[in-house]
C-alpha cells in the first residue's frame, strides 16, 4: 500500500523556523547589532554594497546578519530589494579628482603631487593572529596631522597631460549610460555595460581572472597607476529646479591601471587604461576589476583574443555570483521527471547493449559528448 507524500508546506515552515533559531545562535551570547556589523565588519559590508549595487550600510549590515555571514546570500538579499526600488534617474558623474582622500598610493611614481598616503591598510601588517582582539581592547588613537591643502590630481591625468596615456574615452554628454539591470545585455557590449557588470561581479571571480592575466593568459603588463580611497559628493540633476542638488557623500575606492602601450600606423604609441571602482574600501576588487576591464578591451584595441579574461561573453555571462549561485544550487530542486526520462532511456540502451553484446563483442562507444 502506498500513500503519496504530502505535507511539504509544513516542512517548509518548520525549516524556516529552525533556520531563524540557528541564525540567532546561543541566546546566552548577546545578539549582534547592525551598528556593530556596520562598524566592525565594515569591509564585509562594503563588499555587500558593491556587489549588491546599493549604497546603504544599514541595509547591508542587516543583510549580512540575516544571511548568517554568508556574503553571497547577503548580496542576493540586497539585490532583490534593490530590484523593487523606484528609479528617479541617474546622478551626475562623480568626480574622483575632487575626492576627500583618505588613502592614495601609486606604484608608478615615487613622489606625486599631493603625496602618497597610506591610510588604513593591511598592506604592511604582519599576518600574526592578535590575541588582544580576542580579549577586547581599545586601540591607540590614530595619529593626526593638518589636512593638506594640496590638490591631488589623478596620476593618469598627469600622464595624460603629455599624451603618454590614451585619453579617457569621452562619451557624448547626452548619450544615455547603459544599465544592464534595466536593459537586457546583448553582445558585443560597450564599456559602460562591461564596467557595470564588473562592478557587480563576484570579487573572487574577478580576482582569479585578473590573476590569470598576470600569469600569461592574456598579459597586459599592468602598473597600479593609482589607487585612491575617500569620500566624493553625489549630485542629482533635478529637472524641476534646473540645477544639480547634492545628495550626500559616498565612500569609493578607485583603481586606475596603466597598461602596455599600443600604437598603430596612424597613432603614436601610448599607455592604455584599465579601470576599477567600488563602494567603500574594496581594493582587491577594484584592482582585479581594472585588470579585467583592460583585458576586455582587447577587441577595441585590436588585440588577439586568446584568454578567458579577454572573452567578454565568457566573463560577463559568468561574473554574477547571484546568478551563479542560483543556478548551481538549483540542482537541489527536484529533477524527478528528467531523471526518470534519463533512467528509462539508460535502461533501454543497456538492454540493447547486452542483447547486442551476446551477438558480437563490440566495444562500448563513448557516451555523447
Amino acid at each position, binding site marked *: 500500500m502506498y500513500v503519496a507524500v504530502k505535507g511539504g508546506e509544513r516542512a517548509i515552515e518548520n525549516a524556516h523556523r529552525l533556520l531563524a533559531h540557528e541564525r540567532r545562535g546561543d541566546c546566552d551570547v548577546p545578539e549582534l547589532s547592525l551598528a556593530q556589523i556596520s562598524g566592525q565588519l565594515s569591509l564585509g559590508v562594503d563588499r555587500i554594497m558593491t556587489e549588491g549595487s546599493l549604497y546603504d550600510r544599514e541595509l547591508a549590515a542587516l543583510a549580512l546578519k540575516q544571511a548568517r555571514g554568508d556574503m553571497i546570500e547577503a548580496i542576493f538579499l540586497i539585490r532583490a530589494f534593490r530590484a523593487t526600488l523606484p528609479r528617479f534617474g541617474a546622478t551626475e558623474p562623480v568626480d574622483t579628482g575632487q575626492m576627500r582622500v583618505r588613502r592614495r598610493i601609486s606604484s608608478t611614481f615615487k613622489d606625486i603631487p599631493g603625496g602618497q598616503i597610506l591610510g588604513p591598510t593591511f598592506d604592511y601588517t604582519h599576518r600574526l593572529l592578535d590575541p588582544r582582539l580576542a580579549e577586547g581592547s581599545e586601540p591607540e588613537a590614530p595619529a593626526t596631522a593638518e589636512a593638506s591643502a594640496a590638490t591631488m590630481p589623478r596620476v593618469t591625468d598627469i600622464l595624460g597631460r603629455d599624451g603618454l596615456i590614451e585619453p579617457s574615452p569621452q562619451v557624448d554628454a547626452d548619450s544615455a549610460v547603459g544599465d544592464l539591470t534595466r536593459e537586457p545585455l546583448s553582445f558585443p557590449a560597450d564599456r559602460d555595460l562591461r564596467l557595470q557588470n564588473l562592478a557587480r561581479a563576484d570579487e573572487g571571480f574577478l580576482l582569479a581572472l585578473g590573476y590569470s592575466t598576470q600569469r600569461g593568459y592574456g598579459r597586459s603588463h599592468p602598473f597600479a597607476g593609482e589607487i585612491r580611497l575617500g569620500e566624493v559628493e553625489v549630485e542629482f540633476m533635478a529637472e524641476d529646479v534646473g540645477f544639480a542638488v547634492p545628495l550626500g557623500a559616498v565612500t569609493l575606492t578607485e583603481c586606475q591601471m596603466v597598461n602596455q602601450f599600443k600604437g*598603430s*600606423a*596612424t597613432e603614436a604609441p601610448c599607455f592604455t587604461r584599465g579601470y576599477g571602482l567600488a563602494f567603500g574600501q574594496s581594493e582587491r576588487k577594484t584592482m582585479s576589476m581594472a585588470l579585467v576591464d583592460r583585458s576586455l578591451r582587447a577587441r577595441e584595441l585590436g588585440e588577439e583574443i586568446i584568454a578567458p579574461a579577454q572573452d567578454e561573453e565568457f566573463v560577463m555571462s559568468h561574473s554574477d555570483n547571484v546568478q551563479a549561485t542560483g543556478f548551481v544550487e538549483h540542482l537541489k530542486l527536484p529533477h524527478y521527471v528528467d531523471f526518470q526520462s534519463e533512467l528509462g532511456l539508460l535502461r533501454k540502451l543497456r538492454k540493447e547493449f547486452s542483447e547486442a553484446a551476446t551477438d558480437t563483442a563490440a566495444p562500448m*562507444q563513448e557516451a555523447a*559528448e
Partner: protein
Amino acid sequence: MADSKIAVQDNDQPLLLADGLGKSYGRLSACRDVSFALYPGEVLAIVGESGSGKSTLLQLLSAQLSPSAGKVSYRMRDGVMRDLAALGEAERRFLLRTDWGYVHQDPVLGLRMAVSAGANVGERLMAVGWNHYGRIRDTATSWLERVEIDVGRIDDAPRTYSGGMRQRLQIARNLVTEPRLVFMDEPTGGLDVSVQARLLDLMRNLVSELGLAAIVVTHDLAVARLLSHRVMVMKGGRVIETGLTDQVLDDPREPYTQLLVSSILPA
C-alpha cells in the same frame, strides 16, 4: 596531358572575377591590384613564398576578408554575376556551405573533431534540409569510399584518424554538396611525402571527375604542377607572373619565378 586538363565545360563565362583586389592594414599592404578570371572547371594555383600575400588573397576571394580595394564577383547558380561584398550574410553563408568548399591546411579547422566522420560529411546535407537518416548515411558512406576511407570507420571521430585520413575526410565533407568551386589552402602541407602523393592523386581525379573549379594556394610547386591548369606567382603582395602551369614552371619569365622554380628561395 596538358590538353586533357584544359578541356573544361563548354561554359565560356567566368565563374569568378577578381578586379583590382587589394588589402591593406594601416600602412602595410598585404595584397595589391590583383585581377583575374576563373572559368568553370579550371584549377588555378597561387604560388609564392610565405608572406607573399597568397593566403590573404585566398581569404579575399572566399569572402572571409573584405577588400580595401577592388571587388570579387561570382556567378551564382542562377547564372547572375554578383559582387561578393554586396551579398547578405545569409547568402554568403549559404554559398559557403553549398556551392563552395574550403579545404584548410589544418583539418582541425575544417572538421568537427569530436563528431563522427559520417556526421562530418552529412552536416552540409542536413544544413540544406536533408531529413532522411538512411539517405544521409548512404551518401556519407559513398563519399568515404570515394576518398578511400574504410567505411568501417564511419562512426569514429576524426581525432582517431591519421593526418592523411583527416585531410581526405575534410575533402569529402566539402564535396558532398557538389560545389562548383573549392578553395584550398596548402592542402598537402604538414603531411608526409608518401601521404602527399596519394592525396594529390586523389584530388586530381576528383577535380576532373566532378569538373570542379579550384583555387589552390601552395608554396609547393609540385602541387601546382600536378593539380593546376594555370599558375599565378605572387611576391610582395603583387602578382608578378601568370600563365599556363607548364609554361610558367618550365619556362619562367621573371627572375623571381626562376629562383622559385630552381628551389633557391625558401618557400
